[in-house]
């Protein structure tokens, strides 16, 4: 069964059609990298998956549950689909450790001790064992984003969604975030990544999706698509990002 399945999904903001009948199935273990010009609907598509946006028409199944289902279903979808944001969105009133403990305690109902164990292990994993008691404002952008990834993982999702996770970072800080994401991918996490990092798409992606004007234009193996761009539009886009 697919982890994520778009069935003729349209999304409209007012009279503006942002997603035009998207059909897409992402299987367990895939690392799907979504690229495309800004305004092409990449982020909106991603946000529909964990219901931060509601689909206008069509249906979208996440781990078998419809995003149009009850609020209980929606909450279950969100538990299964972790989200990493461009602006990190760490809770500023909590330390790095408390940020990561937040999900296990508040949404998984774990005890403080269990949550602390989970959070400590994850912060080690993202290389921030030394920064656990720091507040977000005391961390660099790259460190904040790694905490944010740990925070999402702590909820134990089956699927991770990344919405331009390195776009707000200085170039020298991007690698530390991409490295963590690559580790996740090699461990078999199902991932959908909206990004402009072509190197990451090539190295880590198992699948490359090119979006333009609300439509899914190309869908294939990253190496093949990138070495032999199938359309003029895609060729043009690649010239601009590199």
């Amino acid at each position, binding site marked *: 069964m697919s982890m994520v399945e778009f069935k003729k999904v349209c999304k409209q903001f007012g009279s503006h059609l942002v997603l035009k009948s998207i059909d897409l199935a992402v299987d367990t273990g895939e690392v799907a990298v979504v690229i495309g010009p800004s305004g092409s609907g990449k982020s909106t598509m991603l946000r529909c998956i964990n219901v931060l946006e509601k689909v206008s028409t069509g249906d979208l199944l996440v781990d078998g549950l419809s995003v149009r289902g009850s609020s209980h279903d929606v909450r279950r979808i969100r538990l299964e689909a972790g989200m990493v944001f461009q602006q990190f969105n760490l809770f500023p009133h909590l330390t790095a450790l408390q940020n990561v403990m937040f*999900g296990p305690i508040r949404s998984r109902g774990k005890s403080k001790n269990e949550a602390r164990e989970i959070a400590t292990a994850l912060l080690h994993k993202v290389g921030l064992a030394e920064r656990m008691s720091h507040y977000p404002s*005391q961390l660099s952008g790259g460190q904040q984003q790694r905490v944010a990834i740990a*925070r999402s993982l702590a909820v134990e999702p089956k699927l991770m969604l990344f919405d331009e996770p390195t776009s707000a970072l200085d170039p020298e800080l991007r690698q530390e975030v991409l490295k963590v994401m690559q580790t996740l991918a090699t461990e078999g996490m199902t991932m959908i990544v909206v990004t402009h990092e072509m190197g990451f798409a090539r190295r880590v992606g198992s699948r490359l999706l090119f979006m333009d004007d609300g439509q899914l234009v190309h869908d294939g193996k990253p190496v093949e698509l990138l070495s032999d761009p199938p359309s003029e539009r895609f060729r043009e886009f690649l010239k601009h990002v590199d």
Partner: protein
Amino acid sequence: MTFEWTAIVDALPDLLQGLELTMLIALAGLAGGIIVGALTGALLTYGGWLAQAPAQVYVALIRGTPITVQVMFIYFALPILMNIRITATNAGILTLIINSGAYNAEIVRGALESVPNGLREAGLSMGLSFRKVLAYVIAPIAVRRALPAMGNQLVSVVKDTSIFLVIGVGELTRRGQEIMSANFRAVEIWTAVAAIYLIVISILAVSLRVAERAARLP
């Protein structure tokens, strides 16, 4: 004239009794006003129009009329309209709750709206209900942002208790007036009354400053 310190010493027990009532009314008003303000502020920010409309009318009504008129209405008019009895002290407390609740509501709304939307999304995306996101993410940040403005409002509440002399509540200002009309030592008595308010409010202001500093994030 000579400043008669003994007039103050003689008046002090009475004035302190008045202060006790002032503090009782102020504390009840503060607590109630914070609760009413938080609820109304949340309605103004997140409620549908059906919840927002009455909240807006309430705020407009209170901000558009003097507190003296409000207490007169509650003490003299409300008992007639609703066929109830209300003591002067309770009328004072009720007025303060309703009055400061309206001002607090606007402060709370501003603070809630200032919390970045991304934090709400981060909470929701982890599978929390909006209520939990509000309680554990938005509120802790909003409280910190509301503290400075709220402090001003709390100080006003203490001072506004003096208005209740118009309905005969025996609070500090009323006691001062009564003593003065018996001994005519206006300078001494009003100096003492002012000094007592100043001391109480300074203590409140310093505690608020301390609370603000303790809650401040790095």
